[in-house]
């Protein structure tokens, strides 16, 4: 099994095919989308491939150390140009092929007009623990 991170972006990913902001959908379309996401996660729990899923607020700040005895420096809220993560799902699957397949399904979540969003999701393999047998 190998773990993968499916990253969804508020900003920074290439534009989706069906790229309409959610507040311009109909309320029914929003409900259908939320249901699709829920069903997807439930199904992965059923197949034993679901690990975790979290959503992030779009508002955040960059922070860094600014030297001994000084308060940390902050930069933000994020400028319009910055890449902003919207949330993630962690899956634990048998193959890269399976990870691609699931990412494709998630990207097909319905959006405006009930049509798939074709959203770009970022698929990132985890760096796992070293195996016991190496030779």
């Amino acid at each position, binding site marked *: 099994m190998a773990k993968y991170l499916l990253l969804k972006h508020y900003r920074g990913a290439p534009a989706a095919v069906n790229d309409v902001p*959610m507040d*311009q959908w109909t309320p029914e379309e*929003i409900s259908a989308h939320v249901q699709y996401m829920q069903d997807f996660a439930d199904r992965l729990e059923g197949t034993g491939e679901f690990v975790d899923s979290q959503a992030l607020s779009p508002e955040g700040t960059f922070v860094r150390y600014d030297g001994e005895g000084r308060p940390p420096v902050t930069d933000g809220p994020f400028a319009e140009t910055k890449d902003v993560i919207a949330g993630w799902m962690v899956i634990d699957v048998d193959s890269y092929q399976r990870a691609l397949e699931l990412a494709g399904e998630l990207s097909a979540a319905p959006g405006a007009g009930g049509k798939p969003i074709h959203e770009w999701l970022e698929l990132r393999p985890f760096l796992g623990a070293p195996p016991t047998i190496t030779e």
Partner: protein
Amino acid sequence: MTSQVDEVLLRSLTPNVLGILVRRGASFAAAEDAVQDALAEAVRVWPAGPPRDPKGWLVTVAWRKFLDGTRADAARRRREDLAGEEPAPGPAPSADDKLQLYFLCAHPSLTPASAVALTLRAVGGLTTRQIAQAYLVPEATMAQRISRAKRTVSGERLGQPGDVGTVLRVLYLVFNEGYSGDVDLAAEAIRLTRQLAAAIDHPEVSGLLALMLLHHARRAARTGPGGRLVPLAEQDRRRWDTRLIAEGVGILQAALARERLGEFQAQAAIAALHADAPRTGETDWVQIVEWYDELTRLTGSPVVQLNRAVAVGEADGARAGLAALAGLDPALPRHAAVAAYLHERDGDLATAARLYAQAARQAPNLPERDHLTRQAARLNAHLNR
């Protein structure tokens, strides 16, 4: 097949047993560990042979666990003193013991998160694993939080008078966490508050219990399919639990009659006025505004004033609500959502749609964000027609 252990009964005995061990001379931290061990053993052996006297059984086993722990300890001399003497049959556990445990677990030296965890374990009898699951943190993290909390209060003696207000704030936090994982924290908070109300006669304890019951009564109606949030005005009121409402109102009335008003009684009064309306349109908003005025006087909280603006909007019209909102800091949580609501009532749909979208971006949780996005979408669909 063996019978299941009555977990609620088991956990309700926790503070009594703990109190007895502490009276017999065990330190709070050691006694608490021993009681947890005894609870675990009860879960293991009771199904095969339930004891006739569950509390006596727990006290005996917990005391033995405590002595075992002391034996294993480096402090040998103290151990021998304790192990040497068979404990006298301790005085009957009084309601007072239980009360002291509440105070200790909500001690002001603890952070709110630590006080919550310690209360759920030492008073509530939940396992570390259950508490960790409920708060979505790893079990090892929760174990550390609890043992640090125990260390923090280890110098405090049971028997010192505490501030009931700190206990109520802890129970309120537990209730508000709602439901996640296997443990129903709202139900657990109600159980602990009932137990507290039985141990101490205080109108604010009654006020908090009434507030919890009145909110819990609406729980089934509060979420729709797929965890979707249903606002108060749209709830199917037939799904409200009338038995809980009646109980909550009764407790509240008895508390209010004592004329020692506090913030929980005032909040419960507002919840009771909502519960009292068979339809949204029949809500007594004028009285609700009066209660918000009381609550503002009691707490000075800007969040209360924000909620008050909504009530003013219902009682005196959207313009009055917007005027009440005008003086408040826009950075307050849910300010944009309240402004959106009032602007829609005032007929300014474009502003309302923009504010709903903004409120969605600032929402603190997913159901709320989805709800606010849906509100924005509803207005935009109307505007684009």
